[in-house]
């Protein structure tokens, strides 16, 4: 149940409780008042009857001498004049007093169900039900306003989380009012703006660093070849290549972040594409024991083969580095599944996705956490879904779901451009 329903329910419940309590109290007090009034009237009648009886010996106003009194009244009348409401089949209201040795009493019937009280009860029930209904409607509308503002704030925060920019001038326009919700809206907006600024600064920093490093590293690679000692050349070249790979990856990440990447869609037969990618990857970056299995009929999809290769190679390299062989690649329809037999992806990566420079390896230098980040970024450019999980029976499993080919008249017409959705 949403906050709107909860608030409406809570207010209605409290109103209903208050109405019931009030109704019971009013019903009860009116009953007591009726009793008190009836006894007071009988007292008044007895008082008049007593005066006349004493003066003239006449019985007036229905007074009786030595009538059969209810037991509690008969006992109490010895101490002085008393009134009493008897129960039983014929409830009566009594007043009695002693006159010398005799007892003078008046009584009249006192039905349990009083028409006036019945009408009052009915009015209470109708008014109570109407009040509860009205309060439910009012509470619903009040809560709806509150809920809408909270939902707006949440949507704004979600937009930032998805990589959007905070609306310009939003706190002035949306932070109307001075209540807690308005304060929350302003806070969320301020937080979103601050986070967005920080993310933007990080993005710019990555792009700048990568760009600035590229030229000296290229120069370093070229210069290393001129070194005299063969072993030194080999070592410097190897490290320079690693450095260049890192710089290239960083540049790719920054391009993906900037959302300037676009996919070149061409129709390709998926099983043969995967076979080709695995063939090329074998022997590179530690990828060795890889088997490809095609389930069902091979499909032709409109996709960017270069980006699919980038994704698969990065996943394979990650499996080779952190998992254990054999690595199994399964192609089924438009889905490509890569699994290994290692200890699986870390829980953080499964729940939140890969993050740059975060790696599960405790030691430094075994990876920079950019490979899977790039794979996810490239999948987004392709409009594909890349999910990380645990394979049945253990081991890491990455599932790449490529989008279905757009229904076109000719395979050749399926080629087109797909812009990256942005970071």
């Amino acid at each position, binding site marked *: 149940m949403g906050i709107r329903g909860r608030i409406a329910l809570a207010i209605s419940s409290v109103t209903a*409780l208050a109405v019931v*309590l009030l109704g*019971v*109290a009013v019903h*009860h007090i009116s*009953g*007591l008042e*009726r*009793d*008190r*009034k*009836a*006894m*007071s*009237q*009988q*007292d*008044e*009648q*007895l*008082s*008049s*009857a*007593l*005066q*006349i009886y*004493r*003066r*003239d010996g*006449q*019985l*007036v*106003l*229905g007074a009786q001498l030595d009538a059969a009194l209810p037991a*509690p*009244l008969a006992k*109490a009348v010895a101490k*002085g*004049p*008393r*009134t*009493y*409401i008897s*129960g039983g089949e014929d409830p*009566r*209201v009594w*007043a*009695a*007093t002693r006159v010398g040795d005799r007892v003078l009493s*008046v009584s*009249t*019937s*006192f*039905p349990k169900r*009083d028409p*006036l009280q019945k009408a009052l009860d009915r009015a209470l029930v109708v008014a109570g039900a109407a009040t509860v209904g009205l309060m439910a409607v009012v509470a619903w509308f009040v809560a709806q306003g509150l809920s809408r503002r909270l939902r707006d704030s949440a949507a704004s925060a979600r937009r930032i989380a998805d990589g959007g920019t905070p609306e310009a001038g939003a706190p002035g326009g949306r932070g109307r009012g001075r209540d807690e919700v308005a304060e929350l809206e302003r806070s969320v907006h301020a937080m979103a703006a601050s986070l967005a600024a920080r993310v933007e600064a990080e993005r710019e920093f990555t792009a700048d660093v990568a760009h600035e490093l590229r030229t000296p590293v290229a120069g370093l690679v070229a210069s290393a070849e001129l070194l005299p000692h063969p072993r030194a050349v080999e070592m410097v070249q190897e490290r320079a290549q690693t450095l260049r790979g890192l710089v290239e990856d960083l540049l790719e990440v920054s391009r993906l972040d900037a959302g300037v990447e676009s996919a070149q869609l061409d129709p390709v037969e998926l099983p043969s594409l995967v076979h080709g990618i695995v063939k090329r990857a074998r022997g590179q970056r530690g990828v060795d024991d890889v088997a490809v299995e095609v389930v069902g009929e091979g499909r032709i999809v409109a996709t960017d083969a270069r980006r699919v290769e980038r994704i698969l190679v990065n996943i394979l390299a990650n499996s080779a580095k952190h998992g254990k062989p054999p690595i199994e690649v399964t192609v089924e329809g438009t889905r490509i599944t890569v699994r290994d037999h290692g200890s699986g992806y870390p829980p953080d990566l499964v729940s939140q996705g890969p993050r740059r420079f975060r790696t599960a390896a405790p030691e430094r230098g075994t990876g920079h956490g950019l490979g899977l980040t790039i794979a996810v970024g490239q999948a987004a450019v392709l409009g594909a879904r890349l999910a990380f999980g645990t394979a049945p029976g253990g081991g890491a499993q990455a599932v790449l779901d490529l989008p279905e080919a757009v229904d076109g008249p000719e395979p050749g017409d399926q080629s087109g451009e797909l812009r990256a959705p942005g970071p």
Partner: protein
Amino acid sequence: MTDRAAPSRVSRRSALVVFAVVTVLALGGVWAGRAADRSRTVSEAPKTAAAQREEGDRAADAGSAGGAAGELPGVRDCGFGEPVPEPKIITLTCANSGTVASDIHWDQYGRDQAEGTGVVQVTGGAGGTARTSFPARFTLLAPRIVDGRPAFTSLEVRYTGMTPVGKQTETYSIA
């Protein structure tokens, strides 16, 4: 730990609220029950008690006040006994004794006429809460010598609020 602690705190608060509501309802129930019992107990009858005391006082004063009051006309209730000056209570319908003028306070009590206020009481009808007393103004008229003593013979009743029979003014022949 924190996300486990939050629901338990919420449930404890709900339990507290439910407990408070149940306690209030229970106390209300006890109060209602006790009040219902109270109405079934024997209560005192203050007006009758006051009438008892007044009667005793008047009996004590009777001997001393007799001579001075004898000058003014009195009221013979339903034609019985001696005329009583400034009576506090007068029977209006002597046939069934169902209507009585009581609690009369005389504003003016002279030889020709007397005026006062009080209530007219009728026998309690069914329902127990049906009205039995009606405020009225009384005027005693037509003084005559009855059995050798002066007495008023007519009583006019003017209801100042609701009436038991519908008429605003009634005239009764007394003595």
